[in-house]
């Protein structure tokens, strides 16, 4: 009988400790920002968010998923602020009433990476469509993320100009990984394939065995980001006030400078481009 009592007491105490630990964060002020894995993996947010916290006392919880998923999370009202890089989707988000207003905040770019040996011979080409056509005709492996992310949507739009029917060739030289950028780069490295990635993920990525940047700096590869406050009218519980404080800070001189000074291995990654007087 005493043994049972001891067991219950221990378990109860354990339960209290567990609960206390688990609910530790619920007291502080915070907003939920949903953004993309490429943004998170670049390390930018880790760099600038502590600065924001110091200034405002508001903690920003980042849920980093693919662009499509991020937008859906925001549509459902499970986040307060949306930060992604696909203009068409962002505009639709606001047009459908889920977002208050879209603001330019920064841009970086996409690059085409592939095997250093470059079997399709596309290195330093200036015509992106021609380069993609060469990959196709040489039947070199190209990996698509295939996950409805911002990167994926951009990649599809680039292929549209070549006129190739991707559905027909999927599974042959064109392969869809259905995964994030990191997993796709891992696969590209392991199978000597070409793929399109954002520069930030690439710079931070640690598994570049046998791969190099082959095409960069061309206009279609320009990658602008937009930040949007989720509309309180659609989702009454949204932390509109704190969310706006965050957006204002991002667009402010201080926030923009923080974005601009961020480097990976000495290389600048994002260019702040908030419009004056937003």
């Amino acid at each position, binding site marked *: 009988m005493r043994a049972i009592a001891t067991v219950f007491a221990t378990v109860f105490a354990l339960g209290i400790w567990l609960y206390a630990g688990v609910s530790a964060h619920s007291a502080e002020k915070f907003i939920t920002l949903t953004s993309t894995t490429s943004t998170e993996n670049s390390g930018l947010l880790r760099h600038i968010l502590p600065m924001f916290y110091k200034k405002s006392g508001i903690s920003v919880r980042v849920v980093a998923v693919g662009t499509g998923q991020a937008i859906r999370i925001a549509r459902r009202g499970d986040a307060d602020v949306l930060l992604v890089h696909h203009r068409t989707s962002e505009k639709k988000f606001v047009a459908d009433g889920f977002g208050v207003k879209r603001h330019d905040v920064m841009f970086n770019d996409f690059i085409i990476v592939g095997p250093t040996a470059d079997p399709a011979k596309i290195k330093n080409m200036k015509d992106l469509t021609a380069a993609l056509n060469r990959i196709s005709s040489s039947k070199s492996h190209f990996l698509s993320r295939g996950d409805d992310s911002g990167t994926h949507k951009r990649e599809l739009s680039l292929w549209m100009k070549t006129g190739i029917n991707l559905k027909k060739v999927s599974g042959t030289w064109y392969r869809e990984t259905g995964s994030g950028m990191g*997993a796709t780069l891992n696969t590209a490295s392991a199978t000597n394939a070409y793929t399109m990635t954002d520069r930030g993920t690439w710079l931070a990525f640690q598994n570049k065995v046998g791969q190099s940047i082959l095409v960069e700096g061309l206009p279609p590869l320009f990658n602008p980001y937009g930040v949007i406050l989720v509309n309180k009218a659609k989702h009454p519980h949204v932390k509109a006030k704190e969310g706006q404080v965050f957006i204002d800070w991002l667009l402010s001189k201080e926030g923009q400078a923080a974005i601009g000074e961020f480097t990976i291995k000495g290389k600048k990654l994002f260019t702040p481009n908030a419009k004056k007087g937003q």
Partner: protein
Amino acid sequence: MTDFSDALLTSVGLIVNLNQDLTEIVLLSLRVSFSALFIATLIAMPVGAAVALYRFPGRTAIVVFMNALMGLPPVVVGLIVYLLLSRTGPFGVFGLLFTPTAMIIAQVLLIMPIIGALTRQVIEDLWAEYEEQLRSLGAGPGRAITALIWDGRYSLLTALLAGFGRASAEVGAVMIVGGNIDHVTRVMTTSIALEVSKGDLVLALALGCVLMAISLGANGGAYGMKALAERSEK
């Protein structure tokens, strides 16, 4: 092979230096999985025992269903809980999404079937052995249940370990409902997934070693408890 030895060294380094990030992540992982184990056991163990001891219409269906649920993929459970807890979902008003509580809920749902099914099996076998004698002494299933649970304590402990293992090793559910938020809902498995996605395979493997060490510790501890108990009975 160097990847493996690098990973092992890195993991030892992380543990020995008591890396702060790592400690935070490990503590959260333990808190989430143990909480889930606690709650799941409180619900599933009596249910498993009841199904073992009583005959009622629909019993076979429940048994088959419970067993089948053991095969639920974690990511599916995560998806279901996400849709339930989302602001547009039925329980959205509680604002539980992207919190450790959501992760605990998902893991509770995930491990209840295995704890229930294994409990049922253990109690059923014990009751088959003891039923006549216990009824003779005046104990029907209701009165016998505590004696059966105590008698089967080691087998039931194994059931709990199985549940804990399933909870602490899964990544699909906690990723979706927790969001892998740094310092809030990042646990061992989601950290590993993150490091893989960043290409830092050595760190990912090192974290995997730490996770394995914890699992070894839990199982070793349980085995040690059993050995101690058996020695004290002699």
